[in-house]
């Protein structure tokens, strides 16, 4: 059973950065998410899936509270679950838009 809101399998990242360990070098937090507020319908699917990245503001619209609270896979899933595709995911390494597909 996979819980999507308490992903503790990856270290919390402070910002897109290189983590240097004794064994390998691992890039974490390369996805940047942006909410297009005009498209948000307050379904809150993003908040349910990635609550450390998204919450609802005083207008009940989604906003980004942290780029690093959940891992990239969870951020992408949160974006893909948005019924109005209001969340844009960009790969900060390549500059490519990951979601929605262009």
């Amino acid at each position, binding site marked *: *059973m996979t819980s*999507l*809101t308490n992903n503790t399998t990856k270290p919390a990242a402070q910002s897109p950065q290189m983590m240097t360990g004794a064994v390998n070098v691992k890039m974490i937090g390369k996805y940047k998410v942006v909410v297009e507020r005009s498209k948000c319908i307050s*379904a809150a*699917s993003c908040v349910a899936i990635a609550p450390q990245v998204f919450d609802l503001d005083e207008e009940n619209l989604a906003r980004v509270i942290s780029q690093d609270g959940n891992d990239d896979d969870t951020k992408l899933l949160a974006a*893909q*679950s948005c019924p109005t595709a209001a969340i844009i995911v960009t790969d900060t390494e390549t500059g490519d838009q990951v979601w929605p*597909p262009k």
Partner: protein
Amino acid sequence: MPNTPQVMTAKLSDREVLNPKFTQFRFELVKPNKIVFQAGQYVSMSVDPAGHRRSYSILSSPDNDHGFELFIDVEPHGMGVQFLENLQFGDTVSVLAPMGQFVVKSTDPQVPLVFVASGSGVVPFKSMLYDQLQKHGETRRMSLYWGLRHEADMCWTDDLKELVARHPNVTFHPVISRAMPEWPLCHGRVTDCLTVHDVDVTAEYYVCGNQQMILDTISVLVARGVPESSILYEKFY
């Protein structure tokens, strides 16, 4: 507080074409084998390998926890409908569930509930109706206004007639916008119906439909004295 969504696998176990507009699907859970949700919540279904998902409200009530039913307007024939229609019995789907916060707020059965829907917006309300009847029996008054374009779009007629006959606390108002002259009930839109019917300002109102329908319904209800804080809505199409 709604439950945390999980990735779930389910297989198609039944499909019933109710009429040319609406098809009902039944999925049995494979992994996990149980879903805990609140009436009004939805599933987010993966509908292609690229990652596109579609959100569908759960039609079944929460006591039916080994699967879920969906009720789909197939007329748009978009990506989600094509995916669902191409499924064979036994095919599996991946969903995130339960999702959403559109659930009955008041637990006090003295607070009446009024559900206002157009088209497939009725789905969360069918789940809520049966769930509330299980929880509160006949102590809670509930009304369902369901707007459809044509009489031929109507479904579950016998079920809803039986529901109203068995439970005097439930009223049902089908509203047909392009009804034939002989249609005996409300003609027009749900807002027309709400304009002329008695409106209980102590009730909680739940609205589900397209954006314009929601705005129009809120406008009518507020004009008739319903506090805006008592109007909850879900727009999905």
